[in-house]
């Protein structure tokens, strides 16, 4: 009951699923309770530094970030040696104790000025360590779709904590006693200790809910026997293209952020009002930024990312910074602009940018993720400040030297220009990484199976198999037919030693009982010596010349006339022989005309051979005779095989059959399937046109035919508007999804206009995948299909995968 109420309350602000409430609230408070101290610690950091050491020494403070490397390396070793739970808790204890230590040191009158620098370094480490550990936990516990849904909620907890933490110095800090707020910071961390302990207890209790995914370790609190030093972490990142890109983005972001920090603090230092109580000023200023960030995060971040995707989420921040940098370059003395740029830098960094960046980690495998975060989030995030500091020192130095000094720009302007340049690089990197993100998501989705018709075509020689079986069957029925089959095999270079042996077998030697009925007769067949003096190629030539002889046409023509007219049962074999032999002749020969009668024969076996020959001769006049037989199950397959051999020459005729509503449905369906086999643009257009006419009876056959073309011939184009209209119609008639096959037609339609491989990978993993692969699938679709399609498709996926236990929010 309480959970239901909690769910109702939370649903008002975040898309939360039943069962998630407790963990979501705990994580929210965890983030709140670490970011509140940040507000205090950072306000004091900036205040103490400006008070004791001034803004001109800030670049040296940024350089001190290099020392973070030592601390990060130590943290990485710890991470690999102790459990997650122990690491998080011990880090919190360390932070509490050191906060108290600094309180004590700052309490001393005439404390050493250098303490401000040491405190600066400690404050940065404090923030980095606690933030990184928080995101480790989030990545451990939530799958991609859950994370995407809830990240706004967690992030807002962090921002709210920051607001509260900054308001404390904002309103309570006094110039000489602001350090007392470190006691409050310690108190927040003590409560956080309790919350983190409760989270791990809850995870342990609800282990099964999170054990479905193979990519998630439900026992996240257990010690893992891996050693990841900073060096290992760096090598892991550097060896992976995707992670390397992320590293470059973080570096560029950090450098720009450092420039902005220096610019804003340089201008703030000159402001008399701020000078009176830096701690209070920074507290209120940071609180104001965070209120904006909080509102953005809570209300807009998740919706924005879901609506516009990760790429847009990554772009907002650098684009706004670019505009502000240009502004500051033009108005370098503007405190308002300085505050604006700093404000945007922090607000957007904490909200949409941080959320988007964390989402970028989602397709990275867990082991690699930990290695990467050690280097990227803990080390590089800080190291980029050091790099920024070095560049700043360089820019400030150059600004005061010729020829730059002669231009008359203040250092702050040069820094704006440099900032703009780095932002442009950053934007390019964001474009690259957003593309790489989709590729990484796809990499998590294995294709489960291929289209069967392609597999059969690739792996089996169906025609030869049929020919061999027919040959065996006719061994004692008709030596003429048997000879014709052997000749056919030999002409196609398929009379291999194995097949020759098979054809020469006696019944008792048949390899399998299923084949044995074909060898029922005791008489051993005569197998001519085809490798005698006359090689098959020449024999073929001779036979063709014989067939072309006028005398031959006359002699056999007379014979054929008698056979065709005969109604006796015994004439069936003779007709089969004749039908088979006609396939060897020229299409223009007089005997070829006899095939018409044979194609109309009632005997399915006579038709079989007639169709086979018609497929070889490819006379247009035979098409209607063959098509007529598509509706008869006895003859359908043979008619199909023959018509397939016509290829694109009969696309028009097949379209006519397809569109003839008076024609039998079976024939129209086969016509669609044959057009799919032709698989050229004309065939695709004909099929799509038929689909567009609303052929309900044939609809699934048409969609399947189109899908087949798409899978076999990617170059064929399909009219997007027709496909989308069909997709909409399909979805509207679908209703609640009852079985997986219900989803197949809409997915096949999507595959016509989007990357076929991606769409099918998505479908297959939706049906067969684990909970996580379903989530990756929906993430892939989210990044691939247009918004209008998402709006139609995702509710269906939600109803389907929800029953399967997936997380399918769109």
């Amino acid at each position, binding site marked *: 009951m309480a959970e239901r109420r909690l769910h109702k309350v939370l649903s008002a602000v975040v898309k939360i699923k039943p069962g998630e409430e407790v963990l979501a609230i705990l994580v929210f408070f965890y983030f709140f309770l670490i970011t509140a101290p940040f507000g205090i610690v950072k306000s004091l950091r900036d205040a103490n530094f400006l008070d004791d050491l001034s803004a001109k020494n800030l670049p040296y403070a940024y350089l001190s970030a290099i020392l973070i490397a030592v601390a990060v390396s130590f943290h990485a070793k710890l991470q690999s040696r102790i459990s997650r739970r122990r690491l998080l808790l011990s880090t919190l204890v360390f932070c509490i104790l050191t906060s108290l230590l600094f309180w004590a040191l700052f309490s001393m009158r005439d404390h050493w000025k250098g303490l401000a620098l040491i405190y600066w370094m400690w404050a940065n480490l404090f923030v980095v360590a606690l933030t990184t550990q928080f995101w480790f936990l989030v990545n451990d516990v939530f799958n991609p779709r859950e994370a995407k849904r809830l990240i706004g909620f967690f992030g807002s907890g962090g921002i709210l904590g920051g607001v509260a933490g900054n308001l404390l110095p904002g309103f309570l800090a006094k110039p000489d006693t602001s350090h007392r707020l470190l006691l409050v910071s310690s108190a927040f961390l003590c409560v956080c200790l309790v919350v983190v302990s409760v989270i791990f207890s809850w995870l342990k209790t609800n282990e099964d809910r999170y054990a479905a995914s193979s990519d998630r370790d439900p026992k996240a609190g257990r010690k893992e026997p891996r050693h990841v030093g900073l060096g290992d972490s760096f090598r892991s990142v550097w060896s992976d293209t995707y992670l390397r890109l992320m590293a470059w983005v973080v570096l560029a972001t950090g450098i720009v952020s450092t420039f902005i920090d220096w610019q804003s603090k340089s201008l703030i230092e000159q402001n008399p009002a701020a000078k009176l109580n830096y701690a209070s000023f920074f507290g209120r200023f940071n609180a104001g930024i965070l209120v904006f960030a909080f509102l953005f995060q809570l209300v807009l971040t998740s919706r924005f990312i879901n609506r516009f995707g990760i790429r847009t989420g990554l772009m907002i921040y650098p684009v706004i910074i670019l505009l502000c940098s240009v502004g500051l370059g033009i108005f370098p003395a503007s405190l308002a602009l300085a505050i604006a740029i700093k404000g945007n830098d922090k607000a957007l960094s904490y909200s949409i940018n941080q959320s988007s960046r964390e989402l970028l980690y989602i397709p990275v495998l867990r082991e690699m993720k930990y290695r990467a975060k050690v280097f990227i989030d803990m080390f590089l995030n800080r190291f980029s400040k050091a790099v920024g500091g070095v560049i700043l020192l360089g820019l400030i130095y150059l600004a005061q030297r010729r020829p730059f000094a002669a231009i008359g720009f203040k250092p702050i302007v040069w820094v704006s220009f440099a900032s703009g340049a780095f932002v442009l690089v950053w934007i390019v990197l964001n474009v690259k990484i957003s593309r790489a993100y989709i590729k990484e998501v796809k990499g998590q989705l294995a294709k489960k199976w291929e289209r069967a018709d392609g597999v059969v075509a690739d792996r089996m020689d169906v025609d030869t198999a049929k020919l061999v079986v027919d040959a065996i069957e006719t061994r004692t029925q008709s030596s003429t037919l048997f000879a014709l089959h052997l000749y056919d095999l030999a002409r196609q270079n398929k009379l291999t030693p194995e097949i020759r042996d098979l054809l020469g077998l006696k019944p008792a030697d048949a390899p399998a009982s299923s084949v044995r009925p074909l060898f029922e007769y005791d008489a051993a067949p005569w197998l001519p010596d085809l490798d005698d003096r006359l090689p098959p190629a020449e024999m073929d030539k001779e036979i063709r010349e014989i067939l072309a002889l006028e005398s031959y046409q006359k002699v056999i023509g007379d014979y054929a006339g008698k056979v065709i007219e005969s109604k006796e049962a015994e004439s069936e074999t003779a007709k089969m022989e004749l039908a088979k*032999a006609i396939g060897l002749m020229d299409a223009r020969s007089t005997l070829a005309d006899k095939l018409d009668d044979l194609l109309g024969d009632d005997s399915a076996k006579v038709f079989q051979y007639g169709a086979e020959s018609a497929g070889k001769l490819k006379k247009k006049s035979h098409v209607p005779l063959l098509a007529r037989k598509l509706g008869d199950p006895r003859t359908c397959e043979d008619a199909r095989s023959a018509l397939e051999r016509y290829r694109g020459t009969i696309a028009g005729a097949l379209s006519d059959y397809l569109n003839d509503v008076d024609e039998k449905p079976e024939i129209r369906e086969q016509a669609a399937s044959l057009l799919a086999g032709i698989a050229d643009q004309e065939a695709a257009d004909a099929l799509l046109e038929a689909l567009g006419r609303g052929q309900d009876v044939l609809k699934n056959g048409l969609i399947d035919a189109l899908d087949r073309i798409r899978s076999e011939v990617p170059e064929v184009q399909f009219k997007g508007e027709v496909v989308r209209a069909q997709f909409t119609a399909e979805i509207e008639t679908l209703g609640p999804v009852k079985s997986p096959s219900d989803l197949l037609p809409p997915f096949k339609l999507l595959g016509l206009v989007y990357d076929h491989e991606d769409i099918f990978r998505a479908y297959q993993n939706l049906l067969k995948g684990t909970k996580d692969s379903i989530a990756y699938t929906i993430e892939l679709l989210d990044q691939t299909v247009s918004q209008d399609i998402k709006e139609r498709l995702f509710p269906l996926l939600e109803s389907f995968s929800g029953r399967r236990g997936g997380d399918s929010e769109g």
Partner: protein
Amino acid sequence: MMINKREKNSIVIFDIEGEIRRSDITDVTLHQLVKEQLEAGKKQILLNFDKVEFIDSFGVGEILASYISTHNLGGQLKLARISKKLYLVFQITMLTKVLDIHNEEDSALQSFFKD
């Protein structure tokens, strides 16, 4: 190619030797020889292929032409002792349905009297 004629019980037997190919056309072809016999009133003709090493489509054409000529005059033309290869060719081209082919000369000769 060489063609020798003999008779047995009023059946004309042509013993054909060598290769029957278009490039080896002699002055007198098989068809011409058969026509001569037909014109002489002989209506039963047996072609013996025992010593034929090779036959091409020209040769088959000659056989067919001979068959037609014989058949049109109400006569009978049969073949004996053709090679397996040639028999296969005849089977593939369905000539076995039209031409009366025997493994041995004796059975071929006897069949003239049974028909």
